[in-house]
């Protein structure tokens, strides 16, 4: 199942794109595992995703932790802690 990945702020800048479609292998079941797998895609991905403590994620536009399942997810976003307001 293809997943639309979205990146924001410095994660976007480091990855080099704001959106891409990925198709993780069947063994990738959680957000944490997905980030681990994405890190292997390119040196830019590896650098962007290196500091896990500074990353946050949303699955289908809902904030989730690294243990959240990605089963059935269509859109997953990775970004730094938010700083609006």
């Amino acid at each position, binding site marked *: 199942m293809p997943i639309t990945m*979205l990146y*924001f*702020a*410095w994660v*976007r800048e480091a990855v080099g794109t704001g959106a891409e479609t990925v198709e993780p292998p069947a063994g990738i079941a959680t957000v944490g595992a997905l980030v681990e797998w994405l890190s292997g895609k390119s040196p830019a991905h590896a650098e962007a995703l290196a500091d896990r403590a500074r990353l946050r994620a*949303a699955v289908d*536009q809902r*904030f989730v932790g690294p243990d959240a399942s990605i089963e059935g997810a269509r859109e997953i*976003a990775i*970004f*730094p*802690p*938010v*700083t*609006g*307001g």
Partner: protein
Amino acid sequence: MIRAVVQAEPIDLAATLASVEGADAGAVASFSGFVRADDGVSELALEHYPGMTEAVLHGLAEEAATRWQLQAVAVVHRVGPMAPGERIVLVATAARHRHAALEACTFLIDRLKTEAPFWKRERRADGASWVEAREADSGAASRWR
């Protein structure tokens, strides 16, 4: 009346406050956040997560409306580049009594700061940098749970 808007245009304070005032509202509170001119910031740019941002803001506005029995609530957040002194966000609440309006305003800005997917980038003479999230904001948001 519940309104949650994300826009690139400058925020119209008078129009937004007028939109929550009604003949039945005894109390209207508002909060505005501005780009501060200090620290040598020459420009602030706001990035956001289209779709999710609007949903989060609308969800917070609905939660506030229910919790404080608001008669009207408006949340307007600007995105894109802004100059020092410009309004980043405006929250306005209308209720029958003053503490409901004021508390709901505080709730909305506290929760928005930790839950709405916006990211700030500051430009200074020596370059641009992403603003780091503040611990204090998480603390302020958590007291509303």
